[in-house]
């Protein structure tokens, strides 16, 4: 019970702090928080796949890229208003995930991991090679128009903040429900023991496919927000490194735990900013920190607990 209280209190404090953030922080830090928010969306969506269902997906950036490029192409070529491309980005990323999943999702553990790394690389190289003359090659696509929300053009980090963190809040709400539902339970059952899950009536193949497509589609929508924030998309934003970052966010915070994953997003995306003083050594410190934290807390900083109906 006390743990529940602590969690609730932490959630309230966090929500208040985030509401106040754009008013009290400098533009630079609000911009950092916007980036953290987009990473949080990616990490929360990967958490469904990796944390809840236990599928080793180290190519999440590929689906992020498909969404971002879908938005970039639709806005710059067809003049579609940016936020209206959200469903298209989700659909494109989801369909691509389904396509990838059919041959790949039956693979186990580390085989799946390396294949998703491969899919990520193939997508990045495809973008560099300007597939279908749509992606602009190594330079990418620039001049993506700013989004409008309620007639207001969102241009500054402060203006984008409510959009991005509103999306994060909605994602937390929806994924929290999902996690507590029968679907969430089935995912965890698949992760814990696939044979037992199937033997308890869970259509494990469908559960794996559904969560992979859903998580990937969500990453696609994060891509839309990324395009809105940057106004430029290029292949280098969607490399292996991005997938690794999101992967570590999920596991550092605690796979399967929403507060843990948020914490992971803040630490992995935000802390290097705090370490700017260390200059070129900051990634060294980051690598060391990953090792130390896994040795000290192998289950993550804020792990999921099995209790009640979870």
């Amino acid at each position, binding site marked *: 019970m006390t743990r529940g209280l602590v969690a609730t209190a932490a959630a309230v404090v966090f929500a208040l702090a985030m509401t106040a953030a754009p008013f009290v922080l400098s533009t630079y830090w609000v911009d950092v928080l916007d980036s953290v928010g987009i990473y949080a969306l990616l990490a929360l969506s990967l958490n469904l796949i990796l944390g809840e269902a236990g599928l080793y997906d180290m190519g999440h950036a590929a689906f992020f890229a498909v969404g971002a490029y879908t938005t970039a192409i639709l806005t710059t070529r067809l003049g579609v208003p940016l936020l209206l491309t959200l469903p298209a980005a989700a659909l494109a990323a989801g369909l691509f995930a389904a396509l990838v999943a059919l041959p790949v999702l039956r693979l*186990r*553990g580390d085989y799946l991991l390396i294949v998703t790394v491969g899919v990520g*690389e193939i997508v990045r190289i495809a973008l560099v*090679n300007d597939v279908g003359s749509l992606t602009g090659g190594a330079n990418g696509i620039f001049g993506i128009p700013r989004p409008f929300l309620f007639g207001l053009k969102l241009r500054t980090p402060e203006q984008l903040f409510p959009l991005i963190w509103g999306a994060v809040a909605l994602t937390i709400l929806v994924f929290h429900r999902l996690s507590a539902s029968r679907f969430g339970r089935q995912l965890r059952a698949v992760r814990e023991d696939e*044979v037992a899950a199937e033997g308890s009536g869970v259509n494990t193949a469908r559960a794996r496919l559904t969560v992979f497509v859903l998580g990937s589609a969500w990453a696609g929508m994060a891509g839309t927000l990324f395009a809105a924030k940057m106004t430029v998309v290029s292949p280098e934003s969607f490399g292996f490194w991005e997938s690794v970052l999101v992967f570590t966010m999920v596991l550092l915070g605690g796979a399967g735990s929403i507060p843990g994953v948020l914490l992971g997003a803040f630490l992995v995306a935000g802390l290097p900013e705090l370490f700017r003083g260390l200059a070129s050594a900051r990634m060294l410190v980051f690598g*060391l920190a990953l090792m130390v934290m896994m*040795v000290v807390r192998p289950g993550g900083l804020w792990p999921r607990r099995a209790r009640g109906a979870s």
Partner: protein
Amino acid sequence: MEELLQQVTNGLAIGGVYALVALGYTMVYGVLRLINFAHGELFTLGAYLGFTFLTSAALGPRLGTGWGLLLLALLVAGLVAVSGALLERAAYRPLREAPRLSAVVSALGASIFLQNALMLGWGARFQVYPDEALPTSAVTLGGTRVPVVRLAVILVSLALMAALWLFVNRTKLGTAIRAVALDRDAARLCGIDVDQVVRAVFLVGPALGGVAGLMVGLTYGQIGFTMGWSYGMKAFTAAILGGIGNVPGAMLGGFLLGLAESLGSAYVSSAWKDAIAFVVLIVVLLVRPTGILGERVAEKA
């Protein structure tokens, strides 16, 4: 025909490098079920150590030729092996019984740490092996001139693999490694010292990877601190392709990938060169979900 021979020898040389690096991944995976992401950085370390020795005023002139190169290779192999053992001690041993994904993150952390340590140690810019260290002679083979260094790389990697094969199949320690790879708990029950096996694997694998790094430096001249990720990923792909945990599989997978990449970039598309390995992987896993020589895992209830 001439072009083909060039591409095949080139593919075999790069394949030999992939295979040597893949052996390190596959042996560690075999005994610990761990993807040692930092293995790619040990490979890079080998390349940089070779660079440092060759450019040092005192040692460079003696190590650059003939028997000197052999000595250089031994030096590099020894130092990288020690680094590998230290890595195991610091990053992996504390996580031996932890959830598997924690070890994956620790391995990623070790990889990031080492990569940035390399950058801080040798600088962020590419380094170039000294010209006089790079053999430029070529031999005529089937009417085509093939660089000697390329043939040497192929022969050295084959020789190292043969030595490893003998070690794994003909020595007591090698047999213990295979036993642990098959079933760690059963091996322990049979009185095999698992810790000793893990230590051995973290010496032999990095030694081979370090030599592979040196060979890349000698062949292509240019080295950079991030090369471990691309070579490492492809070598790991080779290990999976052959069937992870399987020593002959890693060798086969390495050569196969090297050839596919070399021929693919020559005859299909050079722009897609770095994607070829992964395309081959996906196609092979479609047909054989556990790799070419991987065991067939029967679903057991």
